[in-house]
């Protein structure tokens, strides 16, 4: 590291993109810090990673691995096109290894997508899922046309087994599966009347994390599940001890316990957030929570330093990554008169005028135009200043990028991971250019 720098790499935003980029930088031996205003979009997500759910013609993508080259060809401005199919798959493999090292593995269905069940009882294609949502064992169990019980905990406000069951029954994949619904009470659950707030998934997860009587929970599940082979529960089986709880309940009930992601804050997303942050800390990364980068000093097409609101620090790094997310995370800001990127005022791709930001229907399969808005980058993921100059040591990753639609393409998590990883790769190449004699990696 250069003496005049605090870090080799400073990352703005501690979501999926920023953390993946940070891990890749640390693994490459670079020193790295992440500044993050607040918690990320992982808290809203399903906890599964979508790589490519649908082809360019909107048909279901069976294998994202096979579909990506064609998809990239048809979408030359897509963030995936900035990475290339090879780097994307390298990124997914890297992400998997990092989580495995943190004992929080994710599972893929080989080269193909698998489905996860939503709280509405619909099926969503995705690429990586945690063990409570997809493993080979779960796939085999569902292929046997099993009897399924969808259970809920009494007083839990964010899930309706009847709704999920009704939609699942409409799906021909489940036509031969008897689906029942039920409700259980947890040991140690305080009577609803005493509580001052509705029970959310975090509350249930805490009760389960604290329980010393998993047997009783298993007993309640067995009683409510009847003859079902698979028991689906909202994803609330603990935040800290979740692996132990899942294994314990599977063992004691003799059923395959399955988790369905529900409303935010998403437990499956929180577990992922926790695993990534722990891994980042374990590798020596500096995570600066609750500060906001409010400005960057740019000279000669380079970011010299960034300034933070809370500590009023000027932080200097050799390279910077903008992984500040979309509108929810304030990586992009929309006002009546304009849309902008608040830190560097990078050039944006935006819908032509304010009125065209949203479609006519609120819930529409076409989603809304604002979703494609974001920062324009070149092939290196470098953005431009408002007056069109490329910023050479700033790289962009994740939901702040323009040119993709995670809703209709089913690629939100994949774009964050692929671009975060590609940005780290570009940074490594910039700081340690490959020597002429060494064998160079793929460009």
């Amino acid at each position, binding site marked *: 590291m250069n003496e005049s720098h605090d870090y080799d790499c400073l990352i703005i935003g501690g979501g999926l993109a920023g953390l993946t980029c940070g891990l890749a930088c640390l693994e490459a031996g670079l020193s790295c810090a992440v500044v993050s205003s*607040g*918690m990320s979009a992982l808290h809203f997500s399903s906890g599964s990673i979508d790589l490519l759910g649908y082809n360019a013609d909107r048909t279901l993508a069976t294998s994202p691995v096979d579909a990506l080259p064609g998809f990239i060809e048809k979408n030359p401005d897509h963030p995936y096109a900035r990475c290339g199919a090879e780097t994307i798959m390298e990124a997914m493999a890297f992400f998997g290894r990092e989580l495995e090292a943190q004992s929080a593995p994710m599972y893929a269905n080989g080269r193909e997508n698998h489905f996860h069940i939503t709280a509405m009882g619909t099926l969503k294609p995705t690429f990586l899922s945690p063990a409570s949502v997809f493993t080979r064992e779960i796939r085999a169990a569902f292929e046997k046309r099993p009897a399924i019980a969808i259970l809920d905990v009494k007083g839990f406000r964010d899930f309706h087994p009847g709704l999920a069951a009704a939609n699942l029954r409409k799906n021909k994949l489940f036509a031969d599966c008897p689906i029942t619904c039920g409700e259980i009470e947890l040991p140690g659950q305080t009577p609803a009347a005493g*509580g*001052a*707030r509705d029970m959310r998934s975090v509350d249930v997860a*805490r009760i389960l994390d604290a329980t010393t009587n998993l047997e009783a929970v298993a007993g309640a599940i067995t009683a409510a599940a009847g003859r079902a082979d698979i028991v689906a529960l909202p994803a609330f089986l603990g935040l800290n001890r979740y692996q132990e709880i899942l294994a314990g309940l599977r063992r004691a009930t003799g059923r395959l316990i399955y988790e369905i992601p529900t409303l935010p804050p998403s437990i499956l997303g929180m577990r992922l957030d926790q695993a990534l942050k722990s891994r980042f800390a374990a590798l020596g990364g500096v995570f*600066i929570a*609750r500060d906001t980068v409010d400005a960057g000093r740019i000279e000669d097409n380079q970011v010299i330093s960034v300034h933070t609101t809370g*500590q009023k620090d000027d932080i200097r790094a050799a390279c910077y990554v903008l992984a500040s997310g979309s509108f929810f995370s304030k990586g992009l800001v929309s006002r009546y008169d304009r849309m902008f990127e608040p830190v560097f005022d990078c050039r944006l791709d935006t819908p032509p005028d304010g009125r065209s930001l949203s479609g006519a229907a609120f819930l529409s399969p076409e989603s809304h135009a604002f979703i494609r808005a974001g920062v324009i980058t070149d092939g290196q993921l470098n953005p431009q200043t408002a007056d069109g100059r490329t910023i050479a040591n700033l790289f962009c990753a994740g939901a702040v990028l323009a040119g993709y639609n995670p809703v209709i393409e089913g690629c939100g998590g994949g774009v964050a991971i692929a671009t975060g990883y590609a940005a780290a790769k570009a940074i490594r190449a910039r700081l340690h250019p490959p020597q002429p004699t060494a064998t160079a990696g793929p460009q």
Partner: protein
Amino acid sequence: MIDLENTSFDCCIKCTICTAYCPVARATDLYPGPKYSGPDAERLRIKSPLLADHSLSFCNNCKRCETVCPSGVRITDFIYKAKGSRLKKSHRLRDFVLTRTDISGRLSAGFSWLVNPLMKLSVTRFFLSAFLAISRDAVMPAFDRGTFVSGFRNQAKAQEGFPRKVAYFHGCYVNYYDHALGNDVILVLNAMGIGVTAPRQKCCGVPLIAAGNFKAVRKNAAFNIASLGAAVADSDMKIVFSSSSCALTVTQDYPHLLAMDTSAIDDRLELLTRFLHREFAAGNKPAMGSLNLTAAYHSPCHLDRTGGVRHTIAVLQSIPGLRLILLHSECCGIAGTYGFKKEFHAIAQDIGHRLFDQIEQANPDIVITDCETCKWQIEANTRFPVRHPVSVLAEAVKKF
């Protein structure tokens, strides 16, 4: 009339992330949690103050909700404004003892030889519990002898001799409980060629805010702003804090919660470890000997809230022979005076367990933290001695 300026609750996107990470909401379902007690209920309270209820008292002001909120909502400003202006006070006598740290501290520190042993007696603890609603099980901190300020007078002259100086906000803790920490601050800064002044100051007011006594805290704040402002007016002196909670209160609560004008001191305020980190980075590092010590670092909630943790860690990492274990950030539960109160003591202990367990697992020689009440809480609940980062630094400086 609705105060149209303060509708920042509209920034809340209702994601419930704050409640998911609130340690009190984790410990008890009697607390509605930050989302409801803050932005949600404020919407109703501005229409009818009668809607403020005593569930607000559960909040321990750790501000972890604000640390995680993706929308930058000043959640605790809503909670404490409502507590201060819309709730009827209870436990007035206890609040006086626990919040008027200036007065109770001055009285008790003068009689520390009497007060300290007295506080250990079960009969005293019975009376504290019966009349003041202070938990019998809480371990009360011991007072130091006299005050730091009176001791400092002897050194003031020598400090004047340094060409560069800082204004030190020592706070009540150093003044009444821990003079050694104040002296360590002086030792380290002097070793870096920097002198220390101690402008007149009153308690920053964080315990008064917790009790909702805004009239008293405004008085303290006005005094401090004027006194600190005058002390640094004709120089480029920084005002440094060894306590992360005092720093947070003066930098954030004075201008935001209390709407006080802090422009005279705004750009001077700095947590001491941030000041040290920047000095070290600029090449002004004191000579240090090696410590051969394993320490677990606990970042206090109020330091987390300011985003300043990296400065303390950087300072600790520069100490030779200090092996650092970074604990996963958790609230210790005490939250200033919260854990001393009878009705909240069990909640505080329940909150703290996750931290205590982590410390036990790490099994360090010492625990390090920037917060005085975290220190009390950890010492009362684990086997490990707890030190301030600057005291560890001072030890390394003395070793050279």
